[in-house]
């Protein structure tokens, strides 16, 4: 039996159609995935992402612990700032990708993918053994993502004018603990926005308040197309324990400097760099009609398979199909996606495809 978040009945009331995601019954859309997608690009949308894991890291050695545990370096961020990082296995494979917030009062808050919570906890607990730290899971907190260019204007409805003003002043990837929840200027859509961790009573009040004030509830369907347009990887689809961050277009999130920071997975990544990274995660789009989907092959002019689509969808902001693909070996100039045994020409595009409402891919496609 799938779990639900504390907002299940409110989703039902808002007309949600549900899907089982990582063992949670989550809204996939509330009527139209495309309209929700466009609402986030042009206005504001509200996602319930309470299925994600929140883990607090405290103790005198919280910083040295996370500097060893994570591929990105929490030593680079001041309190009140957030960092995107991979958690790696010893082979350099991605156990999870996460956002870690350095808390103003010391310690850290880590937000984890729903499907990886248990694995992450086990990996982090193992890595934490030599350190004086405590890891506290926070199932008492829910998580909302208020996203879109109008997100700032939606803040006062729940936070009131004074607090909304302080939150509007947050820079991207900054965070603030408030009496109405923990708020980070972060997201997974390529738009401006906020992610808010709240206890259940406030979570319900925040969700209802924003929906009543006209913010559009948005489901996991649009969350997926928004993140794909934004060129953001989805764990389990674009990378997993068998792929390294260097093969997943996430090399920029690995802090190799300082050279003496011996983070988990470092030796494997250094060996990979020495020997040459064999695979790459790249962006593609279809120049004609059709829809890219995960697991479709990409072939070169001779029909040789050069890669596989890892994420693919129709892109509502663009009107054609885009995807991410893992390429083995050199990237040929021209390639085709094999869809139902027929070849469809694709073009390469370094992601993102859309960012902050701007289309970054040439409009060569179209149906």
């Amino acid at each position, binding site marked *: 039996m799938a779990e639900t978040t504390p907002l299940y009945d409110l989703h039902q009331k808002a007309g949600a159609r549900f899907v089982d995601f990582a063992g949670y019954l989550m809204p*996939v859309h509330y009527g*139209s*995935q*495309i309209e929700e997608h466009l609402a986030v690009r042009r206005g504001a949308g509200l996602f319930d992402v309470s299925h994600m894991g929140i883990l607090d890291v405290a103790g005198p050695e919280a910083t040295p612990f996370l500097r060893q545990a994570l591929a990105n370096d929490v030593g680079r961020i001041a309190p009140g700032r957030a960092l995107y990082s991979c958690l790696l296995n010893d082979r350099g494979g991605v156990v999870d990708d996460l956002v870690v917030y350095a808390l103003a009062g010391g310690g850290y808050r880590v937000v984890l993918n729903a499907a990886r919570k248990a694995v992450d906890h086990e990996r982090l607990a193992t890595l934490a053994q030599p350190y004086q730290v405590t890891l506290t899971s926070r199932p008492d907190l829910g998580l909302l993502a208020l996203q879109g260019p109008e997100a700032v204007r939606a803040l006062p409805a729940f936070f009131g004018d004074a607090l909304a003003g302080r939150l509007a002043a947050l820079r991207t990837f900054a965070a603030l603990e408030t009496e109405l929840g923990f708020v980070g200027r972060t997201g997974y859509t390529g738009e401006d926005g906020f992610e808010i961790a709240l206890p259940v009573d406030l979570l319900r009040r925040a969700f209802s308040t924003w929906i009543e004030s006209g913010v559009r509830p948005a489901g996991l369907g649009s969350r997926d197309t928004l993140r794909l347009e934004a060129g953001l990887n989805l764990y389990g689809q674009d990378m997993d324990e068998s792929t390294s961050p260097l093969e997943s277009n996430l090399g920029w999130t690995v802090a190799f400097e300082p050279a003496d920071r011996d983070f988990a997975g470092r030796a494997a990544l250094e060996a990979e760099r020495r020997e040459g990274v064999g695979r790459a995660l790249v962006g593609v789009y279809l120049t004609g009609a059709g*829809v890219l989907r995960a697991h479709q092959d990409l072939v070169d002019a001779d029909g040789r398979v050069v890669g596989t689509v890892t994420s693919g969808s*129709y892109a509502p902001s663009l009107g054609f199909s885009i995807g991410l693909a893992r390429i083995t070996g050199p990237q040929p100039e021209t390639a085709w996606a094999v869809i139902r045994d027929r070849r469809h020409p694709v073009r390469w595009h370094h992601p993102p495809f859309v960012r902050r409402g701007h289309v970054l891919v040439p409009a060569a496609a179209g*149906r």
Partner: protein
Amino acid sequence: MSHDNPNDLLYTASHEWVRREANGVITLGVTHHAQEALGDLVYAETYPVGKRLEVGDTCAVIESVKAASDVYTPVGGTLLAGNPTLAQTPEIINRDPYGEGWLVRIRTESGSALDGLLDAAAYERLLAEGH
């Protein structure tokens, strides 16, 4: 089901509908329930005109934002036409599944039976049972 499934159509358990036209021709589409379950449709591809179809063959593929679905014909015959408007406006299937959103026309073999298909009442019972 609040939405009416027209009484003059026949239905399949896989959520296609069939309308009998003149001269052994049928028109085929997907039901309101199907389009609603699939969500926003963004692509539709009908099989080539002239293609020979056996009962249960795929005659079209429709894709929503999330997934691709095969559409099957419950009758054998020859594919006579695909809906020409689908290439530019696949969302017409969402808006008008029993009208403008039709998918293909098939010339059935002489004497091919349409029995075994469901009438509107039987189809609605099927939906009520949660299929």
